[in-house]
């Protein structure tokens, strides 16, 4: 299905907000093809009806095939019609067909329900990823402002800054790391099944977090800067974003856990095999995978 439709669907059901939808669209640039291939859509009533019709036809054909007579044979009415104390051939094949149908119908309903359940779990993964993405995007958007504020202050107070070169250098490192991660994150929604990509992305994001932390630690040496209201606002936004990232990462990994569990457990594994559902990768880094970077000031 077209990813735009999927985004609209997620928006419509309130699973993501317009900001996250925009982040998803950005993320899908270059990754759209794989998204169309990898992600599923729930079976509609029409879809289920279609499967049921196909099943009925199949039953009729099977019923017909089970008939002992060839269509070219002249029908022996005495054999076909019901006889006292017994069933004719016509009713025998009908009964067999109906029995198969009765057995097949619950299976069809169960399959459809299971398939839709997996689709909705997969959608939860996508929505949770959108949240992770939008928070990382938010952090990347804040970095230029932070760097600008600190550089402006450094220029203003240049004569009293002993460590100004280090601060500038760290600002550049931070900005570069941010830009690199932004590039790496392009099309990430189409690569949720790629464990090594997800690990690389997580490591890159963690490096940005560490650079940010080092930068803020250097800034701490300048109490005038720290106590300004403008810096306080930025600091609050950055710290807030780190917390949002932690919460979103946790929610994403929980939804992946839920989805992966569902496609591996019986009987969901039967449906996932037929429906071509694939395991999603957790968003964890190499070191301290379960510990996100804490930026506290």
């Amino acid at each position: 299905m077209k990813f735009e439709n999927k985004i609209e669907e997620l928006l419509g059901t309130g699973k993501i907000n317009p900001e996250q939808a925009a982040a998803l669209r950005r993320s899908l640039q270059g990754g759209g093809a794989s998204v169309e291939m990898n992600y599923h859509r729930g079976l509609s009533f029409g879809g289920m009806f279609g499967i049921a019709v196909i099943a009925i036809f199949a039953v009729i054909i099977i019923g017909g095939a089970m008939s002992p007579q060839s269509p070219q044979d002249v029908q022996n009415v005495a054999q076909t019609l019901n006889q006292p104390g017994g069933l004719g051939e016509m009713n025998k094949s009908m009964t067999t067909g109906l029995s198969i149908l009765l057995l097949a119908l619950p299976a069809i309903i169960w399959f459809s329900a299971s398939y839709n359940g997996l689709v909705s779990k997969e959608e939860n993964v996508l929505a949770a990823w959108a949240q992770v993405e939008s928070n990382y995007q938010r952090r990347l958007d804040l970095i230029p402002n932070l760097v600008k504020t600190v550089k402006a202050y450094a220029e203003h107070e240049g004569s009293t800054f002993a460590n100004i070169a280090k601060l500038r250098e760290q600002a550049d490192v931070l900005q570069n790391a941010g830009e690199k991660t932004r590039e790496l994150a392009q099309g990430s929604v189409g690569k949720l099944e790629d464990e090594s990509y997800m690990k690389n992305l997580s490591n890159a994001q963690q490096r940005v977090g560490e650079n940010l932390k080092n930068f803020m630690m250097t800034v701490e040496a300048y109490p005038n800067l720290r106590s300004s209201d403008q810096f306080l606002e930025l600091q609050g936004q950055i710290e807030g974003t780190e917390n949002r990232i932690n919460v979103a990462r946790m929610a994403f990994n929980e939804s992946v856990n839920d989805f992966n569990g569902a496609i591996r457990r019986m009987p969901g594994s039967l449906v996932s095999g037929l429906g071509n559902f694939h395991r999603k990768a957790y968003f964890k880094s190499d070191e301290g995978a379960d510990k996100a970077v804490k930026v506290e000031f």
Partner: protein
Amino acid sequence: MKRKILLTLGLSVALFSTAVVNAQNIVACQGKMVCDQTGFLSNDQIRGLTEYHAALLERYDIDLKVVVATNVGDIGLKAAAMFKELGVGEKSSTRKGVLLLIDPAQDKVRMEIPAGLDAVYTDGFVTYLQQRQMVPFFSAGRVADGVLATTELIVGRAQKAAKNEEFIAPENLPTILAIGAGAQTKASISKGYLAPAGGPDVSGAGMSPQQVVDAYHQALAQGNASPDLSIYSRATKDLKRSWVVTPAQMKMELNTYQSCQVDKVSTAQNGQMAFVRYGVRQRQCAPYFLVKEDGEWKLDFSTMMQYIRFNVENKWHFDMSRVSPSVLSAFADWQFDKNGYPY
């Protein structure tokens, strides 16, 4: 091997006990607006906060829940989880909920803001609230007052947001509200209150009552929190020395009065008291009381504190059981309802 089994068993029991305690804590806090699991707040304080927050819910549809719990671990993750588990915001018809989680053991406080409200109460604004308003009170050991003072600023922001239609309609809110928005900070509980910086003295010699009020506003604009300014009466100086003054309060007072126009300056008690009052419809600007001492007009916050009260909307009214007839005589051209609101 035996040691390993024992260790695993021990860990399992510990984890299970923690889970049980957590579940019990959540159950104990269900439905309460203020839930103190530590005995940190007195019953009177809990009652006072609960009443104020009930009024906040009724007037602004904001469900503000306060939880005091110890050793909650990662306060950011815990607050987001608690927000969901306690159903914060469910009492609000527009799903506006705010959770304030205080952990005295870790000396941390976190205000959890849900999706939708995070555009009004941005992370930066919440950090400002905490560091410039809440923490000074907490440092003085006045946790309940700190929560109340913070709520006042929450109300102030809600009033502006409502006027500018900044709130998101509930039907446009996402399903999951707890997104980790808000801010956390070191609470500095009872670590000792550090008053904001003072400044040069401000004298009111030869000034009219209105000029004294203007000089006071200028001191606020300069962040001059000195309790010993010459424009304060003796009783006011004594009172201010024991007050917790925060930068946010000073800014808020200044911003409020900048939007009000002086309506009249009247006197009472044979010209020994003066009142600088604002338009009757400008309900957030309470009148300033001044008293003549040593031949100069001085701001008399001591008497103002006795007679003037503010409601949850930060609207002022007289405490009719206390206000003296001589003070009321200076407002003779206004009527007051039974609760002391002028009209």
